């Protein structure tokens, strides 16, 4: 019999991904049902099933832990919200690219790109048949607030509120600074900040703990760079989807930031997920049983991260 502390349901709920899946599902249902989101109905099952299948194949092929649907579902739901294509074949490809990138593009035990971001940017470069509609959420403030509220809960649980706050502060500085320089009224940066797509990006995409720097200082630097890059794409290159382009570009810098500003690597669910941890002494790169802990001297105890989420 489980005590309350050890109950499997409680362990599941301690994983922020569950809340994130619930939030993204609610936003998708709300968007399709009430905001006229232009999602082809067939895309949703196609993306979800392809993502899960790719996750299963990738897990088997790579030997990276056990099959876990949660991260794949988050990537798939984000793709449903963001990606638009001429036909469902593009949805299949996007899901394969997104989940496949987690297994294939890795540095220092972390995947480089946010999976959804990678798939979308790859397809935007490769074809004219895929697009993103950044204006689809409009700027109705209550929509932004609703999504912000849902997102806040997620990032609070994911302990990545710092990257969201740093990014929003930096991006607001870019927008307000531009308005100040041009002599625009404040209504313009306010309108740009109320964009639902920006809120979604800030709370659900840039916060991905597996693709952001490990240290807080690194994450704040990363968020500021992404904000500056997004401003450059929008106001100097005059291209749409500056947030996505900038995130993809600066994700390549994350291994460098991690080296310069080292920190503890994030583990989904934290230590509460562990059962009967076994302390072993290990050196970097040596094989360790699943669920084992690495003892470092001196320093805190970390669970070995071999997950792909």
């Amino acid at each position, binding site marked *: 019999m489980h005590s309350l502390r050890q109950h499997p349901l409680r362990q599941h709920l301690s994983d922020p991904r569950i809340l994130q899946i619930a939030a993204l599902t609610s936003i998708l249902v709300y968007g399709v049902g009430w905001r*006229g989101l232009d999602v082809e109905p*067939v895309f949703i099952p*196609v993306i979800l099933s392809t993502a899960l299948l790719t996750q299963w194949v990738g897990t088997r092929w790579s030997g990276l832990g056990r099959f876990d649907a949660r991260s794949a579902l988050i990537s798939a739901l984000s793709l449903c919200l963001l990606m*638009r*294509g*001429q*036909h*469902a*074949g593009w949805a*299949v490809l996007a899901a394969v690219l997104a989940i496949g990138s987690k297994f294939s593009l890795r540095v220092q035990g972390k995947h480089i790109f946010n999976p959804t971001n990678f798939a979308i940017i790859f397809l935007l470069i490769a*074809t*004219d*048949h*895929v*697009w993103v*509609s*950044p*204006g*689809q*959420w*409009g*700027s*109705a403030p209550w929509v932004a607030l609703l999504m912000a509220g849902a997102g806040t809960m997620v990032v609070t649980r994911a302990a990545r509120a710092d990257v969201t706050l740093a990014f929003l502060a930096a991006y607001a500085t870019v927008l307000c600074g531009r308005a100040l*320089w*041009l*002599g*625009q*009224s404040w*209504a*313009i940066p*306010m*309108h*740009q900040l109320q*964009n639902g797509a920006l809120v979604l990006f800030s709370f659900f995409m840039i916060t991905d703990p597996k693709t952001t720097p490990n240290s807080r200082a690194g994450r704040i630097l990363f968020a500021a760079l992404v904000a500056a890059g997004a401003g450059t794409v929008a106001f100097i*290159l*005059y291209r*749409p989807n500056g947030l996505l382009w900038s995130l993809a570009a600066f994700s390549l810098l994350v291994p460098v930031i991690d080296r310069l500003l080292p920190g503890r690597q994030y583990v989904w669910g934290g230590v509460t997920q562990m059962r009967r941890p076994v302390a072993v002494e290990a050196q970097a790169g040596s094989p360790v049983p699943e669920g084992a802990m690495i003892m470092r001297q001196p320093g805190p105890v970390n669970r070995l991260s071999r997950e792909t989420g």
Partner: protein
Amino acid sequence: MKMQAASVPSPPAERARALGVSVEANYQVGEYDILILSAKESDGLETWLKENGYKIPPGASRVLGIYLKQNMRFFVARVNLKEHSAGGFKGLRPLSIAYETPKFMLPIRLGMVNAKGPQELLIYTLTANGRVEPTNYRTVLLPTGDEIPVYVKEDFGKFYRAMFGEQVRREGMRCVFLEYAWDMGWCDPCAADPLTQAELTELGVSWLDEGMGGARRGPKSPGIWPVPPRPAPGGAPPVFVTRLHVRYDREHFPEDLVFQETGDRENFQGRYVIRHPWTGRGDCPGLAAYRSSLRERQEQEAQNLARLTGWAMTDIRRQVPLAAASDPDPKWWRRIWGDK
């Protein structure tokens, strides 16, 4: 008609230079005198425009300054009345402007400086790849496919204006409406003949000579996999038409419209169906059933019209003849609330 541009002597250049204004180009085109201006300071530009007889609204200087800092030029057209009367034209012909820029946007703020009430704007785009949409405002499809009463046909314009106004009201005047999106290389049936190559060229379609003709895609495939490219009927041009309709004011549209071309080639048009009932007499056994279904249909049509336009049901019912009026079993509650 092709208009020829002729260079004309520029206005006093020294004064312009003193005000920091550069006249980049100066043309007389048909009944228009046209200047293309750049400037260092908005105050100088405003002064120059006023000194040269252009009426600009108070407060325009600030907006001019915003555009100047973004390295934008000003296209100024003045009607030359002498040329206008000499040409024997009744109205003013449309102006066609060609330019290259990385900014796919439409400046709308200058026009709002002295606007009294909301402005109305129709935007047509011709693109090679697919539908155009704004990136900083929401795009909403106009309601389409509803059946509406026959009497609407008599004044369809009134219906369309009311319907558009109602949709704007419902969306809080915060979105751009898609009225029409059509692949000119595919239509079944075609509402009208596709534009000719000459017409498209005149409208600025520049890619027709770049070998992009021939095989075209059909409409978006509803299935998993794409439909392979197939030849367009009659060699129709590879052009996608988008028509956007927006009603805007300063409060709801603080930013200029910024666009992107999507890969969406799905056809869409706002259309409204009018079905004429059979009004003959006879003793066909199915007639009673038909009249009954007709009454229901007309009721539904009236409700559709009320929903689309915001018109009162009492006013609509007054104009819907016969079947609804001769309802043998009118609902008693309609009398209580005046049919609303």
